[in-house]
């Protein structure tokens, strides 16, 4: 058979390849609309590959650890060199600093979410549960080497007060209580202090 004839046969037979039925327009339109509505109501979550997640988490722990080291280090004096100031203290405190890094990141996320959520008057159950958990961690941190630094101790004490208020937030009386908690957060500049101890870009990675 010539190439030409095979070509013609191929073309004819190819038209039968996965011959589509009539387009189910209405069915698909309904699904498009439903899916768009669902996506609009669901916050978008960016899924990262596992190795990217782990790399980001490791980098974040390092960054936050360094930041906490700087935050909790005593102010430099004449006897310290620039390298001494820049280098985070090494030694057995590392595990505490990693735990503190994770704790601070989670607490910042909670407080930021709580503040923005007050405006939407959404359910507070989730915040209350997280605050209880973080309050326990705060008390453990206060008794750990992390609290040796006066600045870190002051921050932890502020967080303890705010978290205790959220943890005991009564259901059904949310509006006024939440507003008072937010005022406390602002008056104590808690979020500002938190953010200066957690480097930008590490939030959510831990």
């Amino acid at each position: 058979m010539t190439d030409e004839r095979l070509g013609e046969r191929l073309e004819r037979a190819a038209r039968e390849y996965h011959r589509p039925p009539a387009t189910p327009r209405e069915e698909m339109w309904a699904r498009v609309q439903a899916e768009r509505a669902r996506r609009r109501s669901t916050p978008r979550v960016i899924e990262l590959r596992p190795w990217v997640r782990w790399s980001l988490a490791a980098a974040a722990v390092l960054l936050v650890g360094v930041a906490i080291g700087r935050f909790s280090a005593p102010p430099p004096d004449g006897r310290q060199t620039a390298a001494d100031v820049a280098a985070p203290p090494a030694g057995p405190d590392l595990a505490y600093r990693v735990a503190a890094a994770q704790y601070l990141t989670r607490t910042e996320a909670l407080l930021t979410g709580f503040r923005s959520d007050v405006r939407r008057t959404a359910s507070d159950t989730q915040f209350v549960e997280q605050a209880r958990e973080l309050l326990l961690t705060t008390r453990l941190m206060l008794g750990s080497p992390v609290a040796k630094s006066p600045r870190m101790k002051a921050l932890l004490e502020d967080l303890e007060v705010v978290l205790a208020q959220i943890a005991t937030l009564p259901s059904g009386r949310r509006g006024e209580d939440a507003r008072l908690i937010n005022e406390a957060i602002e008056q104590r500049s808690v979020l500002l202090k938190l953010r200066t101890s957690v480097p930008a870009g590490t939030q959510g990675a831990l």
Partner: protein
Amino acid sequence: MDEREVIARVRAGDGAAERELYDAHVDRIYRLAYRMAGDDELAQDFTQETFIRAFERLDSFRGEAAISTWLHAIATSVVLNGLRKLKRARDRETDLDAADGVAGRGRAAEPDLKDRLHRAIDDLPERYRLVFVMHDVEGYTHEEIGAALGVETGTSKAQLSRARAKLRTALSDFAGEWVS
């Protein structure tokens, strides 16, 4: 109806304009998706995802090409990615079957020529298959294919030529039976 006007109305949140845009293009997108997927449910999924993405990203459509070209660029990307995911999942299942000792069993009967051709098309590399289906099956021009796939027209022609050559090779042992 002026296409630009419809797009402007969709951007302004006009639901009727969204439906107009959908109606104008859904047939070609669905046909292409079905030809590639060979399965109604999958084809519907691909078509649905194409339009969802298009509506979500319409603000990024700059109007340098026709909206159908832009929609086909989304559709071909959705279809190729979807089929890749499906293939990976099927490969994993095949591995499990092989581990269970059920793989490698031959077919009971030789397929006829049409089946053989369709299987040969199925076996083409996805890019070649897409170009072949778009051009030889659905009648797209090389310019349309190039624009949708983001390649030069010459690349589309070259890929079609390679696809046809592969099909000829795959069917060469049947050549005698095709003579009528």
